[in-house]
């Protein structure tokens, strides 16, 4: 068949160089379809008008070259080569109406469709990636406030909690004054106990101020507390009938003495 001999020469020198260049980085292609698409582009025509026959030739030359250079080709490259050789024969032979299966034209059309579709997907993928993207060109709220679907335990404290806590600390003394003033306060019980011990010796009228323990009469705060405690204790003792109590006039010293008949 003269056509057969002629066909390879129909591929221009530049296309052959391109085909050779393909061999060098066959690993750079994602399978035979990708390689075919690249080859189809060397035809510099609309993919819909690509010559599938020419493409098949290019591919077969490529595989032949690779074999010659002892380059290991993955199985799917060889499968494609076999299929393209079959397609080529179908396209070159006159259609046989009795042959089974799809015509060469149909097969070629589908291959062209596949190439066009792959190219179309690549184009839209590029357009998609060229779009403004979230986190790169436009942004979501930096501090989302919504608390829905919070998995973490969130500790809450309101400003009120905070202020109340502080108030509590700063004023705990006020709520427990006897703690704060322990060393400056004399309770009635203390005074009573002390006076019970001393009253036995008080046969004569004695100023209740003389019952104030040593060290309590100088500091006014302590003296005030001790005076009040002694006074209350004196009243208690008088009520119990253990002492008599008298005061000469307003603001005069208050005196007590042991009740004689006890």
């Amino acid at each position, binding site marked *: 068949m003269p056509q057969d001999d002629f066909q390879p020469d129909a591929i221009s020198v530049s296309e052959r160089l391109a085909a050779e260049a393909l061999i060098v980085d066959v690993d750079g292609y*994602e*399978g*035979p*379809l*990708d390689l075919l698409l690249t080859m189809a582009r060397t035809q510099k025509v609309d993919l819909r008008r690509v010559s599938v026959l020419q493409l098949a030739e290019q591919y077969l030359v490529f595989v032949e070259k690779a074999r010659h250079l002892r380059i290991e080709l993955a199985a*799917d490259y060889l499968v494609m080569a076999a299929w393209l050789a079959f397609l080529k024969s179908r396209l070159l032979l006159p259609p046989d109406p009795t042959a089974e*299966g*799809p015509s060469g034209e*149909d*097969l070629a*059309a*589908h291959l062209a*469709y*596949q190439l*066009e*579709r*792959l190219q*179309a*997907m*690549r*184009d*839209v*993928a590029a*357009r*998609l*990636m060229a*779009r*403004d*993207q*979230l*986190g*790169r*060109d*436009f*942004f*979501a*709220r*930096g501090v*989302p*406030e*919504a608390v829905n679907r919070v998995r973490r335990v969130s500790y809450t404290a309101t400003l009120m909690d905070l202020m109340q806590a502080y108030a509590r600390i700063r004023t705990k003394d006020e709520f427990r004054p006897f703690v704060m003033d322990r060393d400056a306060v004399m309770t009635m019980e203390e005074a009573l106990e002390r006076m019970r011990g001393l009253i036995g010796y008080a046969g004569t009228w004695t100023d209740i101020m003389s019952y104030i323990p040593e060290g309590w009469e100088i500091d006014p705060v302590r003296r005030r507390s001790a005076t009040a405690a002694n006074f209350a204790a004196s009243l208690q003792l008088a009520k119990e009938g253990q002492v008599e109590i008298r005061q000469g006039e307003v603001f005069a010293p208050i005196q007590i003495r042991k009740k004689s008949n006890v």
Partner: protein
Amino acid sequence: MSDQTETEQEQSLFEAPPMGEQERMVEAVLFASAEPVTVAELAARLPHGADPAEALVHLRRRYEGRGVQVVKVGDAWAIRSAPDLGFLMHKEVVETRKLSRAAIETLAIIAYHQPVTRAEIEEIRGVSVSRGTVDQLLELEWIRFGRRKMTPGRPVTFVVTQSFLDHFGLESARDLPGLKELRSAGLLDNRPPPGTGLGDDADEGTGEDGQSELFED
């Protein structure tokens, strides 16, 4: 039916806040959330009788031309910074792993052909799809599993997610760039190789079903 009426009556007992107030509420909720919020969620969070859809119309208009925008993402809404001000944000940019060419193409095929099976993706790309590629896209939450195809083996399908729409600033999958051209060129048809298989007819049917469902209704 009577239940419906009862509910409506019950709801009407609560007076909905004025539209201006509803707009404020929608504004606060959208601002507070980094994720898009559906109208249904808004309705659930706003007081009874509120009309978040209408409030959204007002709110969207209010933010036109501002530094942030009210955008629609699928059936949800979000506030996003204006794309033209992205240059101010370099501090906020989170370096994302560069997607491989395989991943980008796979993503595009899923987006334009959804719901699509792994076999169909492989048919289109002419190579097998590595597990890692799909995993990466799933991890990014840009794709998810769709319903199974009613073809032999009931293969799983992949579809794109709301996050995908959100990430690429798309209101819906219908707004994918070049979708119309691709469709009219017949490049989204599920065209099986001539003379192959028998089950393809069924496959074709389902495939077209899925697309029409997504893009044409």
